[in-house]
């Protein structure tokens, strides 16, 4: 039983699902220890490569689990690892939200909504700060982020995909700028 990699994947990822408080970044160190040191499914270099891939891919950062599962045990491994990481926390979130939201006509629920809303906004600002810190993009990151924000502020109907594509194009232009200007 313990040798079955599918069961092993589930046993590793389910506990991480319920401890990934604050999002996927909180469990990366733990995942590395389990998959590299404890189970020996991956080498250190493989783990780093998979982490890079999951950062570049669309979706939440925790898609790292999917690609680890795939690497360890193919498509079934990817499915098991994904479900093990996403389902337990999702069921918990659903239950908590449902329990509180059925009382949304009550006065305490109004106070809870209005009290939690500014905390939600504050946490997004905190997220922006830490994203800037992690991105290490310097001035370019600030300029592209400010421009995309301004663009959507004044042209709210502009497709989001177009704004993101412009960001990618701007980064590519800035990268090749020295060559383009003949330096």
């Amino acid at each position, binding site marked *: 039983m313990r040798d079955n990699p599918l069961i092993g994947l589930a046993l590793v990822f389910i506990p991480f699902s319920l401890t990934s408080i604050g999002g996927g970044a909180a469990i990366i160190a733990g995942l590395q220890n389990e998959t590299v040191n404890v189970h020996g499914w991956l080498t250190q270099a493989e783990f780093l490569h998979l982490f890079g891939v999951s950062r570049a891919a669309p979706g939440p950062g925790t898609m790292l689990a999917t690609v680890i599962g795939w690497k360890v045990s193919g498509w079934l491994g990817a499915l098991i690892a994904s479900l093990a990481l996403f389902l337990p926390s999702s069921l918990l979130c659903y239950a908590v939200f449902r329990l509180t939201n059925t009382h949304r006509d009550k006065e305490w629920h109004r106070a809870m909504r209005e009290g939690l*809303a500014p905390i939600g906004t504050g946490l997004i600002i905190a997220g922006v700060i830490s994203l800037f810190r992690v991105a290490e993009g310097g001035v370019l990151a600030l300029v592209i982020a400010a421009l*995309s924000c301004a663009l959507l502020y004044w042209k709210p109907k502009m497709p989001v995909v177009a704004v993101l594509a412009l960001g990618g194009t701007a980064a590519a232009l800035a990268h090749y700028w020295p060559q383009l200007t003949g330096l």
Partner: protein
Amino acid sequence: MSVPESLRPADRPSLAALFLLCFKVGILSFGGGLSGWLYQEFVLRKELVSDEDFSTSLAISQMLPGANVVNLVICLGEQLRGPLGSIACFTGFLVGPFFAVIGLYKLFDLLAGYELLPVVFNGIAFAAIGLLLLTCIQGSRRAIRFPPAAIVIALTAFLVGVLEWPLIPVVFAIAPFSIALAWKRR
């Protein structure tokens, strides 16, 4: 303050519409600005939920374990279409990235050594941060009408973002005060 106009049954999106909306955001969302993009779609463009309901759902999503955006689409789905809505949002949101991350792993092997790829991905991520900035602006604007809420925003952002204190204890410490202030405000 704002009565949730978002729950008028006639305006409820179909399950297929929710699935497709979340699929679109999931498969195209590079970088970190996912909740900013969900805000664009659910609040500003489709006007499915109110600004305040969105921020409340976000706070709950961030406090609980799990990927924040996955929790967020579950809350949004439940508000709009109940349990089936949550399932539609959850699967719609994750099915694209599931195949994309494996496809990208194979693609990276093919394109190894192609230097422009990470540069472009970074640019997309920076633009995605811009979406989040806009969400901050809208949320702060609502809070300015009630100064204590603006203080709560600034304090949360400072403690978690600048000082990098752990999120959970900070939220649990600030939430009672913030809720008490909202309670008194009536």
